[in-house]
């Protein structure tokens, strides 16, 4: 097995394909680093403008997460300014730009490189691992030499896997090292630990697609067929299933549109104000303020309580559907591991609501003591794993074992005659 692995590596180290994959990965990583670091710096600078000067300020704004240089996820949304008043929570855009092209195109971050490009390179490095030998007739010789089929298969897998991940690992570590040297990143234990988690997830994901490439190669008789099948599988697993999942979830579990929720919140506030004015025309000015505040508070909580279960249902369904593809599981895993995912946004919003409730009398002007400070800790790894992380890891492992085991089974039945 080791000798086959070595042969695979040495044979491909000097090939055009390996040079191309290495070059592509290096260029993409460098571009991604420069672009996402620049974006992070802009958000950091913006945070400097927006952060409340007074520690007891009612406004809540989170600093940008340095891990968003690797996985941007929802970090620009998490960094918005939440203005808390007795009439509810208003969200202010804290973005540096209103450039709408950001919502037309994907973010070229490490998550994109891992999810799309690493999967593609894994397939490109492995699609001809067995069928190439079949075409040249060397597979017969290899089998005739008495090597165990599972050893040959495992050697092939390991060789191609090393070839796939080595350009990625080298460029990724170079990126992390470069980031660690920068003063605005503050690369402490949290940053480096999560970078290691991202790397581990990427390695597991590359293993899944290498195993898939090898499986297809063991089925196909010609490299051309294997390539066509590999590309079809890549499109299906990286684009079709992960992108169809949210659409199906949206159609099956509808959530009120944001505009509807905004309108209802606005109308309930206006209704409470107008009714207060009407009552005060009779009872005198300043007699009905608290009732109005209570009405607005109750209406907002009611909206939140009716909206949240529907949203959770939709997200759970999207999560379940997307897990039918390793790319879907990796999307959730990477975003959660870097604290830039959906779970983190919902967690932050819960914390903001709690903060509002704790300080409500201060916002309403009943209590004149200073506001309690807002303290927020991003989710720890234990919490992430207990939520959906473990399930996503199991999904990736199941895909890997399934592809590898199925491929090995097919190869063990291969008749060289």
């Amino acid at each position, binding site marked *: 097995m080791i000798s086959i692995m070595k042969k695979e590596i040495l044979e491909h180290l000097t090939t055009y394909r390996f040079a191309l994959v290495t070059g592509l990965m290096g260029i993409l990583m460098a571009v991604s680093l420069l672009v996402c670091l620049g974006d992070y710096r802009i958000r950091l600078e913006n945070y400097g403008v*927006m952060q409340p000067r007074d520690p007891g300020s009612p406004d809540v704004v989170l600093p940008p997460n340095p891990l968003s240089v690797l996985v941007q996820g929802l970090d620009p949304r998490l960094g918005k300014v939440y203005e808390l008043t007795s009439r509810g929570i208003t*969200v202010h855009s804290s973005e540096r730009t*209103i450039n709408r*092209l950001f919502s037309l195109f994907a973010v070229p971050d490490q998550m994109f490189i891992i999810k799309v490009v690493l999967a593609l390179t894994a397939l490109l490095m492995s699609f001809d691992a067995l069928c190439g030998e079949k075409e040249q007739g060397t597979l017969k010789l290899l089998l005739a030499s008495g090597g165990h089929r599972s050893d040959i298969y495992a050697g092939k897998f390991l060789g191609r896997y090393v070839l796939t991940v080595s350009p990625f690992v080298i460029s990724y570590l170079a990126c992390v090292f470069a980031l660690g040297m920068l003063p605005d990143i503050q690369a402490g234990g949290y940053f480096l630990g999560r970078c290691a988690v991202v790397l581990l997830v990427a390695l597991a994901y590359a293993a899944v697609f290498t195993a898939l490439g090898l499986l297809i190669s063991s089925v196909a008789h010609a490299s051309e067929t294997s*390539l*066509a099948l590999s590309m079809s599988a890549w499109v299906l697993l990286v684009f079709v299933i992960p992108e*169809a999942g949210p659409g199906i979830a949206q*159609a099956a579990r509808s959530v009120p549109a944001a505009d509807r929720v905004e309108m209802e919140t606005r109308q309930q506030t206006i209704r409470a104000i107008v009714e207060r004015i009407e009552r005060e025309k009779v009872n005198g000015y300043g007699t009905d303020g608290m009732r109005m505040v209570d009405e607005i508070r109750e209406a907002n909580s009611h909206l939140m309580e009716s909206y949240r279960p529907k949203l959770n249902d939709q997200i759970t369904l999207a999560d379940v559907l997307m897990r039918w593809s390793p790319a879907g599981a990796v999307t959730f895993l990477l975003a959660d591991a870097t604290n830039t995912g*959906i779970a983190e946004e919902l967690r932050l919003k819960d914390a903001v609501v709690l903060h509002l409730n704790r300080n409500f009398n201060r916002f309403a002007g009943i209590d004149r003591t200073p506001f309690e400070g807002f303290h927020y800790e991003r989710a720890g790894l234990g919490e992430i794993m207990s939520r959906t992380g473990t399930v996503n890891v199991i999904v990736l492992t199941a895909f890997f074992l399934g592809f590898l085991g199925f491929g090995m089974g097919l190869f063990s039945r291969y008749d060289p005659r």
Partner: protein
Amino acid sequence: MLRELVLKEIHDNMVNLRFVLASAACIVLIVVSVAILEAAYRALERDYRVRVVQQDEFIDRYGHMNRAQWLARAMREPELFQSLVLGLRSDSDDNNFISNPAAALLPRLDFATIVMVIASLVAVLFTYSSVSGEREAGTLRLMLAAGLPRGTFILGKTIGGMVSMLLPFTIGYLAGILYLVAGAGVPLDGPTAAVFGLILAASWLYVSIFTGLGLFCSSTSSTSAQAVLKGLLGWVLLVLVMPNVSPFLAAQLKSVPSAAWVEQATERITSEERDRILEDRATGMRTSRYADLGDLPHLRKSDIEQKVAADPVFRERYASYSREYEEIVRTVNVEQGEKAGRITDEFRKASEAQERLATLLASLSPAGDLTFLLTRIAGTGIEAENHWARMAAEYDNAYWSFVEARYKSEQAAHPAFGSNDHLDLRGRPRFSYRPEGIGERLQAGLPRLCALVFFVVLFPAAALLSIRRYDVR
């Protein structure tokens, strides 16, 4: 000779496993994505109708001057063609506390993505071996030795490759349209048919570009293995890297002030600062000219109404005070509005410059051009949003003029009528969104169309240059 070459190319592709896989994938994917997005569109459309009725009823019941602009918001009807081209994601999702984060993190599969990512990749995979394969098999040498002109050879390969690629893709698209028309009951009138036709034409051009790219890579490679790697590298750069990097690059090259800072500054100018100035001026007016009316701000509304009804002198003085007060409010609002407007204008100009640069950078790739063209034709892009914003602003002005006129007429009839009293707004203008005409959309999309045509010609021309230099020996 050209005809034979084209037919041979089409035949070779059609009997290939790749063709069967691509045809099946195109048909299934397009129909599934259209069906999912059409269901989402119907839900949004129903939601829009409910919101319109709900807002109308609310204004009828709670209409008053003070919050008139807060009461009525122009609402945009969902665009029918978003079942094919999703385009811009609504910003309102991001700026509401109760909003769905899934839409921001998880992209959805639409026809535009299928064309931009999947069909273009399939096109490269269809053509990467068209020249290098002949070279490897030795048939290229035979064909050229038999006197086949090199231009005819490339032209035949180009036309053959494009036709065999466009065939399954067109079948898939037509199946999607059939679902929309027959299954979902979308009326196929002239403008709708024109939009469907233009989307297909733009997609044809785009897919042809990648057929040309595959051919170019094939003609510059000695083996098919080399050709496919070159083709995939080119595809990754043109489809996945260049358009995605452009907005980030533009944001760093053309910096703009913080949107949040602008929002805070204008909010402060038009609320706290405005109230302070208004209070100062109103107090000055009351103490200098209307001291005889008493402590008006602290009088009950019902007491004022009683005094107005009982005392004709007070009634006249109060009416004069109200007119002057309204004039101060109007002047202060105009002054503060202009001050805030200057800040917003500067920000808007800087943001537009950044957006223009990002668009220019993205246009260097066919994927960027296709995105802009499809969203332009389908009415789901930046220009459609600008068009909607202009119409909404016009509506706001018309609505505000109506509210002011109604308020003045109520005040003339009842001098004690205040800005918080119920104002009958039932005759107000109603907002109705008219999308741009198909002619305007096509005219505006013409530069993008030309860019796509340029790319269509570029790669086969480069392939021809490369094959001209090919030494048969």
